[in-house]
């Protein structure tokens, strides 16, 4: 044998090795044989290997988008939009898509538990009969005036049920709250409509038919009121008319995702929104000639321009654009209303619309219709009302507190002292689906089903047609949970007397049917002669809505005649920077426990899985701060630490932070991740009692620490950063 190994031998060896590797990798640990458990009894409408679709309503926010959920063999596989549903017309947002990761979430509350206000989710499970007994005892043995109900923004049917119960037993009406409502400043918007239109309602902005849209801080493409409906409207506004492309201008101190779609983003000084709106009005009135209406008479555009940090020419040009527009529309919202003078901002923007003469016209401002089976518009509690409620809790006025669908310990600024107030309530019963901060501070957690396992209905807030969106279970409950409505019904029946009389229903579905009874025979998307077929159609189509819009036209006269005393907003705090928290467009208020929402890149910064502080690169340079440097944001209320993201589209005097992270509980994906900017906020309100969340000034302190943010974008991306260091 030669001492040389030939090339041929080497190849042989190599080939043998490769073949062996191939054989080995071919047999992965996947088991060759599986067990397959057939149904004992096949559920109706299902077929092996075939999907079944159920219509229901999304519960990730309160906008009431219709969903059609694809299920297979009793598992929910995919969320799709309900194409007939007037709110979303078959479309969904990211949070709606990820609702399945809430349904099949590893950190749900699996059983009713005696939580006893522990730091972790209690393992002391209860029997449901015992749980109902606890609720029943709590209802019976407490003076009705000392029972309180704290409800989330969804679902509406449970709110109605609890309202009926509270009303019948003489308890105070349930309080409704949600972080989205707080950051949307819903109370301010409806208060402005009330002041100018003389009617408690939500104004309706006909975005899709407008051709020039000016928004003051309304982030309607992100989380504001009904983002899917507004995004559809935006698309129609932009490209719906082949003759012209819709023009969109946004006034906002920071370029939000919404502002990034604007043709012009105008970074004005925070707090000057109402002044700029009035100045625009005056310029428009002057451009048209004739007398300047009372609302705009006392404003001087030149002063306003300098106060707001803008050029007068910008305002003049914009005024001319609005004058020339066929369907101009101005929208107030978000950060503009979360100032000390937020109500003035909302009112002056509505007055500007009145001046533009768009009330009741396509692309203009309307009064939203009431939803079917609704007596009056009920807005959620403002922050001021929550503060009053907290004061009542602290003073011992609440002996039993029922909480469902809301997490105020996390969502409300710490300064409000909700957690401390909760500690002074003798009995707290939570119906949370997830072990969130508020649920952990309760005595008992009696978990409700996930939204996709639930019956119910939800009223659409932003819709030209009155919509009552229907929810039905698309899968059987995965855990040992029970519908909160059923728990209350059973508890009331157990208590007997006035409680049973208040809720004489066999179950949740019977209660929902009683509310739907008034719609039987009404003309709408479908009509049914009696309640059983009505309910069947209601489930099949995912709700009931009228065929025609029923928008009311507000009166422009009072809006235009209102005399404003224009003044820039006052800011609290000593710091150098305006503080602007905003709701994370991808996480919303309660998305942090869903891994795929965490994995989504923030649209403008592309940051994933964490909280960041947005700072203008110039400012950062002056302070000697670089990307990923951890800074401390300090206010009178306290401080939080988060890494800096050098954001090229923010005013140099503004610091912005997303809201949605910073949980201390709420499951493995949320807990201990990021910080909560609400911790920096103080107890300050605007004139309508909403939280002045954008009305603070803060200090920025360097910490010397660094935390690398995970971003989707290349790290050598923004302004060539990172290049010079190589």
């Amino acid at each position: 044998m030669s001492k040389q190994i030939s090339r041929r031998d080497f190849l042989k060896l190599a080939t043998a090795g490769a073949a062996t590797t191939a054989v080995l990798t071919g047999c992965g640990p996947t088991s060759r044989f599986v067990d397959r458990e057939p149904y004992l009894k096949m559920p109706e409408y299902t077929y092996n290997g075939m999907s079944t679709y159920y219509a229901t309503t999304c519960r990730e926010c309160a906008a009431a988008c219709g969903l059609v959920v694809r299920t297979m063999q009793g598992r929910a596989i995919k969320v799709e939009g309900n194409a007939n549903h007037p709110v979303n017309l078959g479309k969904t947002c990211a949070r709606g898509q990820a609702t399945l990761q809430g349904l099949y979430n590893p950190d749900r509350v699996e059983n009713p538990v005696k939580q006893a206000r522990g730091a972790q989710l209690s393992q002391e499970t209860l029997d449901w009969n015992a749980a109902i007994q606890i609720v029943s005892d709590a209802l019976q043995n407490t003076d009705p005036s000392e029972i309180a109900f704290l409800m989330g923004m969804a679902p509406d049917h449970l709110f109605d049920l609890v309202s009926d119960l509270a009303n019948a037993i003489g308890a105070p009406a349930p309080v409704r709250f949600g972080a989205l409502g707080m950051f949307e400043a819903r109370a301010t918007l409806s208060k402005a409509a009330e002041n100018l239109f003389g009617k408690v309602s939500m104004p309706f902005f006909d975005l899709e038919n407008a051709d020039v849209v000016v928004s003051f801080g309304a982030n309607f493409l992100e989380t504001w009121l009904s983002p899917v409906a507004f995004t559809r409207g935006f698309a129609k506004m932009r490209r719906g008319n082949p003759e012209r492309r819709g023009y969109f201008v946004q006034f906002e101190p920071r370029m939000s995702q919404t502002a990034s779609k604007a043709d012009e983003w105008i970074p004005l000084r925070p707090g000057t929104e109402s002044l700029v709106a009035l100045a625009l009005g005056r310029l428009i009135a002057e451009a048209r000639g004739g007398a300047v209406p009372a609302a705009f008479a006392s404003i001087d555009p030149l002063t306003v321009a300098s106060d707001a940090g803008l050029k007068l020419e910008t305002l003049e040009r914009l005024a001319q654009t609005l004058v020339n527009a066929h369907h101009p529309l101005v929208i107030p919202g978000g950060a503009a209303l979360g100032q000390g003078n937020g109500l003035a901002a909302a009112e002056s923007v509505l007055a500007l619309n009145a001046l533009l003469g768009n009330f009741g016209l396509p692309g203009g401002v309307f009064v939203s219709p009431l939803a079917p089976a609704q007596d009056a518009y009920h807005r959620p509690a403002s922050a001021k009302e929550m503060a009053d409620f907290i004061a009542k809790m602290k003073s011992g006025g609440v002996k039993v507190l029922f909480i469902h669908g809301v997490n105020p310990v996390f969502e409300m600024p710490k300064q409000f002292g909700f957690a401390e107030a909760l500690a002074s309530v003798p009995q707290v019963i939570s119906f949370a689906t997830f072990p969130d901060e508020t649920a952990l501070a309760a005595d008992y957690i009696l978990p409700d089903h996930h939204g996709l396992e639930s019956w119910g209905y939800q009223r659409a807030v932003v819709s030209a047609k009155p919509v009552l969106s229907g929810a039905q279970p698309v899968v059987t409950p995965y855990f040992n949970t029970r519908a909160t409505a059923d728990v209350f019904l059973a508890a009331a029946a157990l208590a007997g007397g006035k409680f049973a009389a208040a809720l004489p229903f066999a179950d949740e579905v019977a209660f929902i049917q009683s509310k739907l009874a008034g719609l039987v025979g009404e003309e709408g998307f479908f009509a049914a002669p009696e309640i059983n077929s009505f309910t069947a159609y209601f489930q099949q189509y995912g709700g009931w809505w009228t065929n025609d819009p029923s928008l009311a036209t507000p009166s422009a006269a009072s809006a235009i005649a209102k005399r404003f005393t224009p003044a820039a907003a006052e800011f609290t705090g000593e710091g150098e920077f305006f503080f602007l928290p905003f709701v994370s467009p991808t996480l919303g208020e309660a998305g942090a426990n869903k891994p795929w929402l965490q994995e989504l890149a923030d649209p403008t910064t592309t940051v994933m899985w964490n909280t960041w502080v947005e700072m203008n690169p110039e400012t950062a340079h002056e302070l000697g701060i670089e990307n990923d440097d951890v800074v401390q944001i300090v206010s009178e209320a306290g401080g939080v630490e988060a890494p800096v993201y050098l954001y090229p589209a923010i005013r140099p005097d503004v610091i912005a932070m997303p809201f949605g992270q910073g949980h201390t509980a709420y499951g493995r994906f949320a807990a201990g991740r990021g910080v909560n900017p609400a911790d920096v906020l103080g107890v300050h309100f605007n004139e309508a009692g909403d939280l002045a969340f954008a009305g603070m000034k803060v200090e920025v302190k360097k910490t010397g620490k660094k935390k690398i943010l995970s971003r989707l974008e290349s790290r050598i991306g923004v302004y060539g950063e990172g290049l010079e260091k190589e």
Partner: protein
Amino acid sequence: MVKRFFEWVIGPMGRIAVVIVGMFVFSLAAFGVYQTQQNPKPQPIQFPHNLHVGLGIQCLYCHPGASKGPSAGLPTISKCWGCHQQIAKTQTSPKLKPLLDAMTNGTNFVWVPVAKVPEFVHFNHRPHIAAGLNCENCHGDMTKVTIAENPQVMNMGWCLNCHRQRAGDDEAKLTKLTDCGTCHY
């Protein structure tokens, strides 16, 4: 360096090492083959296909999904019971005890599917039935077996053989039937 290694390999110690390594690799490979060639687990009921087919029951009666969608499906227990509740022997036969238990106590049992493709293969029954194939073309003659067995290894060569035959000279059909994306996605 490389040259010295090769010299060592063809030396006596090297040859022994090669043999040891070779044996090791061979045993791993044998284990891998063994892993893929195990027999299925026992079925909960020794289901006699021959008897049922002999009674004139159509395949699609119990496996109706085959004509409708991807999965032929295993019958629900209530379907078995539909006939068996009328048969006196069901109450007494020890072989049928799991069925009786399932219906009376709700204790479900699990079948072990025998005709199974790996999860990276997406097989759909419907087009195969629509193309005129009969069940026995792939699953064998069920009048001859009790517990279903796979008459052949369902590997890709077997699939493609048939696909090529069926396509014949039709170029478009051949393209479609031999496209990777037809089964793998």
